[in-house]
């Protein structure tokens, strides 16, 4: 059996789950519908894509993982527990499960099992290795708002960093444009599977995000060219100007739709505009805002701007000062996607402290996410979390493994809008699962098997004869290296 995920269906389910309108769902993105809409329908909804996922999970035998310490991602730790995978899904979690006929049985006594890790902030593929000039595809730094660009169109699927992230247990990642711009463009969520095309990695039906940026980067990039923004006040004015345009665009579209609905034959659709389609998608709640923002005061300002224009900020990324406003973030339902211990690499990161994760987490309703923004960090998100736990304990707040795992699984899934499908070990969820050689919150922990939709994508005990990345294939300098 092959699991072919139908992009249209999956998108509709997700959209309904997020209480979006049936209108959006009805014009869901099949190729024919998209083509048709360009002629006779209003400008395409912001979530329609001409670039549908072609991800197909390969056939996989049923798998029974036996006798592990299981961190479910729902806050539970279940010792000596079995996890059964079949048809790409988690089908059972419990004691003494009976293996399906022909099932692969993994003796996981002494091992730990977690949901596949999810990184909400990666530039793999858009800033790939090797980092040569020709690979600098992450920042369309030609205007402060490039909401028209989509990170997925920059992804080089041969980036060897995908494979090394997989070895670190990462099964899903969001790839974002860089932070040169106030509004950098759309992000994409991918499954960490090797594919010749990025469409073959695309997480079926995952909402897209929009990358925005605060602070030093936009004002440095444009200020150095004597363009706006060159100050933080310029940043805020820049965002607001964009949202004002977007509001007009939404009004034009709504007016057109109303005319069509009223049966007007001569209604003329508004001109399509890729930039405004993205911004309108944010205002309509269809696209998620992932906002690069370090300082507490700037995050508070962004929340005011979001309130002014009626959109939601899903997560602040980097957020080294999130701990200063942990209550504010929690009250607004905004996650902080952060490093464990980066600080002072620029002025706005001067106040970064390693208790950031623990403090964000400690606020009632707080949502802490460990993110990487790094091809190295993504390989060991579990170790980043372990650092956060260690500093939490030193502060007097011990954080249990069954809770800390949420920073790497359930919380990022929630921020990406895929929490109904992955991010926890629950019956019916995608079988995105990692078997670790021990407690994952240790420098010694190694992922032994990584399953994505039930298929083994990495097996430390049975390394591939060849690297998956074409780039590393046949390179004399890797001879003798186990890929």
């Amino acid at each position, binding site marked *: 059996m092959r699991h072919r995920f139908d992009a249209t269906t999956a998108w509709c389910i997700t959209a309904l789950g997020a209480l979006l309108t049936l209108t959006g769902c009805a014009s869901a993105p099949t190729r024919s519908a998209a083509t048709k809409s360009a002629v006779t329908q209003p400008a395409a909804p912001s979530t329609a894509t001409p670039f549908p996922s072609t991800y197909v999970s390969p056939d996989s035998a049923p798998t029974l993982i036996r006798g592990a310490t299981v961190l479910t991602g729902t806050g539970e730790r279940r010792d000596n527990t079995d996890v059964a995978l079949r048809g790409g899904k988690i089908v059972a979690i419990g004691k003494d499960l009976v293996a399906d006929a022909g099932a692969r049985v993994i003796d996981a006594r002494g091992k730990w099992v977690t949901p596949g890790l999810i990184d909400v902030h990666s530039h793999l593929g858009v800033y790939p*290795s*090797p*980092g*040569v000039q020709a690979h600098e595809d992450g920042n369309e730094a030609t205007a402060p708002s490039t909401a028209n660009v989509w990170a997925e169109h920059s992804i080089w699927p041969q980036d*060897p*960093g995908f494979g*090394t992230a997989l070895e670190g247990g990462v099964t899903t990642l969001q790839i974002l444009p860089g932070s040169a711009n106030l509004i950098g463009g759309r992000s994409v969520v991918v499954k960490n599977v090797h594919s010749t095309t990025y469409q073959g990695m695309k997480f079926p039906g995952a909402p897209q995000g929009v990358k925005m940026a605060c602070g*030093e980067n936009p004002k440095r990039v444009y200020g150095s060219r004597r363009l706006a923004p060159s100050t933080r006040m310029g940043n805020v004015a820049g965002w607001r100007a964009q949202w004002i345009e977007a509001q007009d665009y939404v009004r034009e579209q709504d007016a057109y739709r109303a005319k069509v609905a009223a049966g007007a034959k001569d209604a003329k659709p508004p001109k399509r505009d890729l930039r405004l389609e993205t911004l309108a998608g944010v205002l309509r709640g269809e696209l998620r805002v992932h906002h690069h923002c370090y300082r507490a005061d700037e995050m508070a300002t962004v929340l005011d701007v979001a309130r002014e224009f009626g959109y939601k900020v899903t997560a602040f990324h980097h957020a080294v000062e999130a*701990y*200063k*406003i*942990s*209550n*504010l973030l929690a*009250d607004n339902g905004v996650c902080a996607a952060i490093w464990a*211990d*980066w*600080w*002072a*690499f*620029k*002025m706005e990161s*001067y*106040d*970064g*402290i*390693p*208790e950031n994760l623990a*403090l964000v987490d*400690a*606020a*009632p309703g707080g949502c802490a996410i460990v993110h990487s923004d790094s*091809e*190295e960090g993504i*390989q*060991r998100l579990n*170790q980043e979390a*372990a*650092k956060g*736990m*260690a*500093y939490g304990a*030193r*502060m*007097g707040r011990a954080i249990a493994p069954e809770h800390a795992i949420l920073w790497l699984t359930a919380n990022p899934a929630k921020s990406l809008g895929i929490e109904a499908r992955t991010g926890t070990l629950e019956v019916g969820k995608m079988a995105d699962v990692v078997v670790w050689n021990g407690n994952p*919150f*240790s*420098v*010694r*922990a*190694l992922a032994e098997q990584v399953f994505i939709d039930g298929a083994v994508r990495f097996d430390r005990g049975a390394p591939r004869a060849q690297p998956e990345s074409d*780039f*590393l294939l046949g*390179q004399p*300098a*890797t001879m003798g*290296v186990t890929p």
Partner: protein
Amino acid sequence: MITRRFTTLASIAMLALPISVATAENASTALLVRGATVYTLTGNDAAPLADTDVLVQDGRIAAVGRKLPAPAGARIVEARGKPLTPGLFGGLGRIGIEEIGLEPTTGDYAQRLNQMRPEFDVTLAYNPESMALPVHRSNGITFAVIAPSTTTGSSIVAGLGAAIGLDGTAPANARALFVDLGANSNSLAGGSRAAQFMLLRQAVTEARAPNLVMVHDDRLLTPSGRQTLLDFLKGAGPFVFDVDRAADIRQTIAFAQRENVRAIIRGGAEAWRVAAELAAAKIPVLVDPLQNLPSNFDAIGATLENAARLRAAGVTVAFSMRSPDVYDAGKLRQAAGNAVAHGLPWAAGLAAITRTPAELFGVADRYGSIEKGRVADLVLWNGDPLDVSSLPELVVAGGREQSLASRHTALRDRYYERLQRNAAR
């Protein structure tokens, strides 16, 4: 419980004294660490001393042994079997010579004089009052090397650096000369790595024949630079070559042998490919154990097993993060743990961030091992010192017990208190 925690923190905050005062106060007090698992890093015996006491008196290690009597008035720390190590190495970087990345007024790690200046000595810019010192010290790092960098406007010869102690003492006298080779230095050498070796050779020629008269005086070096380079050619200290590609490492070995100088490879992403040659030439390698991606075309062979393979081939291995960012010094311990997870023996991982770098940079009399008579330099850990889940419980550096407070803990305490009042907003 939250209220109680707040009280405790508040009292800690009120008791916190300026670090210099707190440490000076403890200078003359005897300190007895009782019942630790002591990793002395002396000799070749990797086995730790179980249930062992270490007595510090007048800033020096007065005794290492079992059941030591406590001098009157000594502060006693019960280790209960926890690991006691020498203070750790922070790698080659910018502690005290850069406060904030991207802010040029706080960064002194490079000169942009458009000239080759081997005499450029970053220790002159060293600021022992950088907030980074207490941060890293409280995390168990007691020594590091401040290293100059190459950048646009410098040359492939970055200049001089030296070991520093994180207790704030002056940089060590021993200097090392830093040279960057390979892809990232092409723009500093006319666009070719061949020109890098050409310029290096020319500089050496100038240094060895300082009175050579040239018709057209297009010498690379100033008189002072010629002297500095000559000193190093005569053995004043090691050349630290930042180089990754196997072929470039071979050229570097050839240079070191031809000029008969002490060389250290820094980075060495592909060093494992020339491990036998490095071992034969007795050239140590400062590996970044996390470098496993082909960040450029010099590092196609990068692998997490670099350290383990080098050691197996008989190469001396120490660690330094590739990134010179100040905060990355804190990651070296994690990197060492990862090297162990990928095949390096645990004891070799610890030596690579204690004794070995102390030896390479001429400060082994002061850092990197625990021995009677030495200025005390100790860290007591609440778990495996190579694991990210462990943190220090006690840090002794420069003979003094160090406060575990820093700008980071001050920020933490301020905002944890606000959070507990539901006021972090």
